[in-house]
């Protein structure tokens, strides 16, 4: 432990960040920044002396840091200023999508991961999981050093033992297998290959827990290249997605969201909006944004694609494109859709997320027939983000079964948990002669491995990434490793007998292999430095153009008539938690699911009709029985799901979640955040199977039976529509005018379409407006058309503002602390619903009702239009929260503990950690505003939009949030406010909010009148109202 502390504050030489004291007052330091250099008068001198004294006293008072660290730098590291953040461009490691990350470091430690604005793929966005990965760095339960058979061992000992063991294997000619997720790093891939080459029988098996192997296999079959195309949603005018949640969790959701959003811009000079049709069996995030959404059964995916292919190739109805199995209404809609696709040849895109080989081949056929290859999807410069081969995995499992594997090295994957159906049990792993596990945590696989060789967190390591062919990026460490972990790159070299530093290995590889492909004529050093600074570089070259082979389309397999009582189990990844690798992460566990708004647990989603048929409602526990395995889960009624589907989220029920048993405030009424088995949620993996060389996320023929018990779901939103229950609805008041939506047709005619009749707003005030806001007047504008509800902003806000995690029980008690929430509303009847997302944060009203009622002036208005919350002043009457029409205020019901010294390193030093009994809420990231103003003053420039990005805006992949000075007519926010779509929530009660929303526009043919009729008859979606 002492050993580690020495490392916290020292900056890595390469990254050159950091300062000595970690307990100083950040604001005092800012005062230093504000003062022009060289002007030290008596007052300043005394202030400085006082600061130095108090900083020393506070730092000393912390008790944890050794004394020498309080001393100022003897040699000040170049480019660092205490209290000022340093940003490092890097590659996010939360999944294999390889989004560009900007790591914000304060005093030598990363405190926030943001999107890299210039990154060509992610375009400045970063998803919830990427934001939350920061917490993984400071996870006190990470493996802190190497172990042999459970004993802590120094790396030298591990290397010695492993070299000997590998030598044995080498001499015996045994099979060595490396099992990993997709490796997007060319350097690491090369090292793995070199490592395996030293053995007679070495192979690298790649498995992606969220497998899309069917797409690669299909391209192998149809185009002769087993690749994953790079999808270009920005270039597609007609998007058809069959079971692909490309905005939520599929392959590279941030890049796809950014591109999708770029294709749907309504306020530019030439407004454009792609037409998006979603066929899906459950309500995915992508489905909520679709212009048209069709419910299909999971096994209908290939039928739909087959019928579409027939219509596009002009062979509709003929064998093999029969449409017999489709319902008439679906056929009619396919007719129209095919026409639209044909009209948009080369400007359309059909994607399929199903692990059905036939469906994927049909999908390729359609895209080829539409001439989309090379335009909206690229296989010449394919995506490298998923390279998994399920067939190879099945082969490895067979080898393990037969005991033919002499050594297995597992990198960054938890196969015991993540390979479905329990196919890779701990016993199976033990049949390998040697199991070396390079993971980060003590998980299911670690228990079965003899050697634990923990890898660095991605923020600690040097590595590179090539997420799409021809686009490379460098990952640089943002701090020196916290624990005695070691980069896998270094481990592999050590085991090959040629120990090398990761940095040297990386640089050498880049000099020899990457630099020759560079598009610049610069020297290698310049190329390297620029890439390091920018975070990415473009490379020449690509694969040879593959063209469609003449592969006959097989006749459809006979689909057995579904048993009317049976369900199809669909396992899906949840935004944030994904395949479950982030299950340890409390921010993501507490992030409400974008659609169901449930936190912490997984559950069995049933459609409204299915729930009715089974006689169950939210929270009723059902038993999902697949014959050979079963699990019991509470029901969550999900409108818009297919009636024969029961959908369960992947990634739950991991041993890593046992840590949450004690989470949350301690009092006698507390209920644990884990279930009876001590884990969060249930693992759906045992019910899934690997069939015909593909991991299937569907399981046909499962039975769902109510058990009669109940579990209360921890849901942050219990009422799901903006229509009030009809029996409580006053005349004309069924639908609340808080979220406006319209169709593209209506919008083209009238930009103000969708707005209800404006109420006369009473302009008078009881109290004079004593804040003229002559300088800045901060405001925000949220584009509801762009917002996908992905929740990236929620986690970004949580990370930026030190928002505590409260645990499942407190969420059930409706006391989650998120400053920013995303309201999700259904409209429509039963399972035929539309979904709207509405981010909701403090509206910073200019006529704020919270300000009047506070007896102690703890919430006051600033001259810049902010509604400021003064924590020190607050006595906690909660009157302000009661009197907030938007219910965005959050109260510290308890002391939310920050006890762990390692985990506390994640706290943003610019933001106070609130004590119990104090109200808090969105501050528009006032700390960033202050910093921007100081910086602008120092530089003598005007404060611009780019300088004042709140955390939520910074991370939004869709660019839904604009923030800036409403007094500046050139600011993005002013332009949005001036647009026809602008409206303010609850404008009629005259709070004069500073947050503006832009009407949600759907690309629909249906006209306004029809839409209104629909709303007027809208009823409760699902009996959800509580």
């Amino acid at each position, binding site marked *: 432990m002492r050993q580690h502390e020495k490392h916290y504050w020292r900056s890595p030489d390469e990254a050159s960040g950091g300062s000595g004291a970690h307990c100083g007052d950040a604001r005092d330091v800012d005062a230093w920044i504000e003062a022009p250099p060289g002007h030290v008068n008596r007052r300043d001198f005394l202030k400085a002396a006082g600061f130095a004294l108090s900083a020393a006293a506070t730092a000393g008072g912390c008790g944890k840091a050794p004394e020498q660290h309080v001393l100022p730098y003897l040699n000040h590291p170049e480019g660092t200023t205490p209290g000022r953040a340093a940003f490092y461009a890097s590659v996010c490691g939360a999944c294999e999508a390889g989004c560009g990350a900007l790591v914000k470091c304060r005093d030598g430690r990363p405190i926030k991961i943001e999107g890299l604005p210039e990154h060509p793929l992610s375009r400045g966005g970063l998803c919830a999981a990427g934001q939350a990965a920061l917490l993984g760095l400071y996870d006190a339960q990470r493996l802190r050093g190497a172990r042999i058979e459970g004993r802590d061992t120094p790396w030298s000992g591990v290397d010695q033992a492993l070299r000997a063991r590998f030598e044995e294997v080498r001499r015996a000619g045994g099979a060595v297998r490396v099992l990993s997720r997709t490796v997007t790093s060319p350097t690491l891939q090369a090292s793995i290959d070199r490592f395996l080459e030293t053995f007679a029988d070495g192979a690298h098996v790649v498995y992606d827990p969220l497998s899309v192997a069917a797409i690669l296999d299909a391209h192998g079959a149809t185009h002769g290249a087993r690749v994953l195309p790079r999808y270009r949603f920005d270039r597609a005018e007609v998007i058809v997605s069959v079971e692909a949640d490309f905005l939520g969790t599929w392959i590279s959701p941030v890049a796809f969201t950014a591109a999708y959003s770029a294709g749907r811009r309504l306020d530019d000079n030439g407004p454009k909006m792609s037409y998006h049709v979603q066929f899906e069996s459950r309500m995915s995030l992508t489905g909520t944004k679709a212009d048209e959404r069709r419910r299909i059964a999971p096994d209908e995916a290939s039928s739909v694609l087959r019928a579409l292919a027939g219509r596009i190739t002009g062979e509709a109805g003929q064998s093999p494109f029969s449409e017999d199995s489709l319902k008439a209404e679906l056929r009619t809609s396919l007719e129209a859709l095919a026409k639209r696709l044909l009209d948009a040849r080369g400007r359309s895109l059909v994607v399929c997320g199903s692990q059905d080989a036939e469906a994927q081949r049909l999908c390729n056929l359609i895209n080829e027939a539409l001439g989309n290859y090379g335009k909206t999807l690229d296989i010449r410069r394919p995506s490298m983000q998923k390279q998994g081969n399920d067939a190879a995995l099945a082969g490895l499992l067979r080898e393990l079964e037969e005991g033919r594997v002499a050594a297995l090295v597992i990198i960054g994957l938890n196969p015991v948990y993540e390979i479905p159906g329990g196919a890779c049990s701990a016993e199976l792993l033990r049949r390998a002669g040697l199991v070396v596990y390079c993971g980060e945590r003590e998980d299911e696989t670690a228990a079965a491995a003899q050697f634990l060789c923990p890898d660095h967190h991605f923020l600690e390591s040097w590595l590179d990434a090539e997420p799409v062919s021809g686009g490379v990026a460098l990952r640089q460490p943002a701090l020196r490793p916290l624990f005695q972990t070691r980069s896998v790159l270094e481990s592999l070299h050590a085991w090959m007998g040629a120990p090398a530093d990761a940095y040297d290995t990386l640089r050498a590889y880049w000099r020899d292999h990457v630099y020759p492909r560079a598009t610049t004529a610069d020297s290698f050093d310049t190329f390297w430095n620029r890439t390091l600074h920018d975070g990415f570089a473009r490379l020449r070259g690509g694969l040879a153009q593959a063209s469609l082979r003449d592969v006959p389309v097989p006749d459809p397999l006979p689909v057995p008539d579904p048993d009317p009582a049976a369900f199809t189990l669909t396992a899906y990844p949840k935004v944030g938690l994904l395949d479950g690798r982030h299950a340890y992460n409390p921010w993501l566990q507490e992030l409400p699911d974008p659609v169901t708004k449930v936190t912490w647990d997984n559950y069995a989603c049933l459609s409204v009709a299915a729930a009715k048929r089974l006689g169950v409602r939210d929270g009723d526990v059902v038993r999902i029985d697949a014959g050979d395995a079963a699990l019991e889960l509470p029901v969550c009624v999900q409108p818009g799901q297919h009636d024969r589907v029961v959908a369960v989220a992947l990634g739950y029920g991991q041993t890593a979640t046992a840590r949450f048993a004690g989470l949350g405030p301690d009092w*006698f009424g507390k209920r644990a955040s884990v279930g009876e088995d001590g884990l969060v949620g249930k693992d759906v993996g045992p019910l899934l199977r690997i069939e015909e060389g593909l991991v299937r996320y569907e399981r046909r023929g499962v039975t769902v039976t109510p058990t009669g018990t109940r579990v209360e779901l921890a849901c942050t939103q219990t009422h799901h529509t903006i229509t009030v229950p009809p029996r409580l609805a006053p005349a004309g008041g069924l639908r609340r005018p808080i979220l406006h939506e319209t169709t593209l047709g209506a919008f083209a005619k009238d930009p103000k379409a969708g707005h209800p009749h404006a109420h006369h707003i009473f302009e008078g005030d009881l109290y004079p407006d004593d804040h003229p806001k002559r300088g800045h007047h901060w405001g925000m504008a949220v584009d509801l058309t762009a917002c996908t509800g992905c929740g990236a902003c929620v986690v970004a806000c949580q990370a930026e503002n030190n928002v505590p995690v409260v645990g499942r029980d407190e969420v059930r008690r409706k006391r989650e602390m998120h400053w920013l929430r995303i309201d999700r509303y259904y409209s429509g009847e039963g399972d035929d619903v539309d979904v709207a997302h509405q981010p909701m944060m403090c509206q910073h009203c200019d006529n704020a009702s919270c300000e009047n009622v506070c007896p102690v002036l703890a919430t006051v208005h600033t001259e810049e239009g902010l509604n400021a919350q003064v924590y020190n002043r607050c006595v906690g009457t909660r009157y302000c929260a009661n009197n907030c029409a938007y*219910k965005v205020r959050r109260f510290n019901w308890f002391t939310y503990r920050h006890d762990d010294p390692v985990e506390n390193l994640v706290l943003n030093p610019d933001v106070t950690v609130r004590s119990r009994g104090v109200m808090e809420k969105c501050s528009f990231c006032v700390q960033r505003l202050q910093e921007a103003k100081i910086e602008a003053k120092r530089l003598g420039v005007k404060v611009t939009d780019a300088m004042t990005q709140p955390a939520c805006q910074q991370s939004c992949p869709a660019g839904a949030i604009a923030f800036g000075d409403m007094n500046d007519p050139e600011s993005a926010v002013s332009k949005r406010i001036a647009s026809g779509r602008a409206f303010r929530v609850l404008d009629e009660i005259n709070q004069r909010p500073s947050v503006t929303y832009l009407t949600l526009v759907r690309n629909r043919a249906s006209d306004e009148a029809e839409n209104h009729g629909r709303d007027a008859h809208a009823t409760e979606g699902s009996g959800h109202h509580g």
Partner: protein
Amino acid sequence: MGGTPMRRKGAGIMADAQAPLRTPWILGEKRPIDVSNDICALLERKPTRLWWAALLASSTVLLIGMLAIGYQMATGIGVWGVNRTVGWAFDITNFVFWIGIGHAGTLISAILFLFRQKWRTSVNRAAEAMTLFAVMCAGLFPLIHMGRPWLFFWIFPYPNYRGPLWVNFRSPLVWDFFAISTYFTISAMFWYVGLIPDLATIRDRAKAGLRKKIMAFFSLGWNGSYRTWIRYEVVYLLLAGLATPLVVSVHTIVSWDFATSIIPGWHTTIFPPYFVAGAIFSGFAMVLTLMLIARKVMGLEDYFTLRHVDAMCKIIIVTGSIVGLAYLTEFFTAAYSGNPYEQFVFLNRAMGPYAWAYWIMVTCNVVSPQLLWFRRVRANLVAVFALSIVVNIGMWFERFVIIVTSLHRDYLPSSWADYTPTLIEILTLLGTFGLFFTCFILFCRFLPVIAIAEVKGVLTHGRSAPPLPHSQSDKTRHASEAFEEART
């Protein structure tokens, strides 16, 4: 020279002659000395077992409540059932409930005094004591409902070192602070001033000892002289005049906590009169509850008679009807306003998740008090006792309904949430009853529960009209019989 006031024709309000045709307010042909003996005897004898038992029970409940509050203070407001949507529930419900209870005392002691309602003399002492104790219970809640109650003094506007910050005079909570502290001060003053002649009586009767010393100190050298009485009556009249506006102002300001907000169901101009009427309604019910017990237990049947009960029941009918009218008016206003949020709140009250609470409120406050229109019900003390408790249950629910149903479903449906109280909140409410009854039981034991001096003023003894013979005259027979019947 105890508490026998000098009588001058027309000198004092208390000295008015008794109309011979009416039944006397005080039964049993009391002479002034009998009154002193009767009331003081209660203090001078040893406490009964019943008294001890009651004290033990109520102080136990008080202790439990204190433990609950202690736990909450140590742990956080999170031990209550309140949440991000329903920020106030039991706490402010109890606060308004207790403040309302207090109102009857002030009304009886001040307004009825100014209106020369002689029957008030039998109940005003107890009612004023009740006011004080109820305000104490009420005052507890704004304190403990704070997130950081140890900083409660930040809402006092006094010169301080907390920087340039001051209190927010736009906040109804600050107004509340002034209203309640003023109310408590004036009520305590009024009660104490009214007590002085009686304290002197006790002093004069007490043997040398602690009691005598204490009473001598607190009776402020009262000598019963003509001049003392004149001064006393002037002060009392002035205090009554001061206290009178408070009857209206306190609950008006409490109602502004809600009325000045923007929450549908709170934001309504009808609240001040509605709250004041409700407060008097519940206060009178509580006085009845207490006095009916005291009457039975302490043998005060001659002092607190069926006529008193009858008069108070009539006030309950009037105020109860005002409250009922207010309920209807709220619905009308909502319907007429055309404001869908407002309309929804009221439909939701009557038919939403808390409809049970709403209908308890309506049943207890509007329906059941209608029984008091019947003379036979008013003369049936068991029925009156039961109804008085029912009214207080109803009035507690009224505040609960106003606070919780308005908050739990306001503007944005995404934030709608339900509220369920926790054990701690229930124990805290019980604890305030413990506090109230402990104080009241101690009061009954150590201070004259009936204003001796004032009651003497309404005695029929020694009036110009001939006293009623022991063999009752025909004129009064039927009335007396009726009362006797009722009593047996």
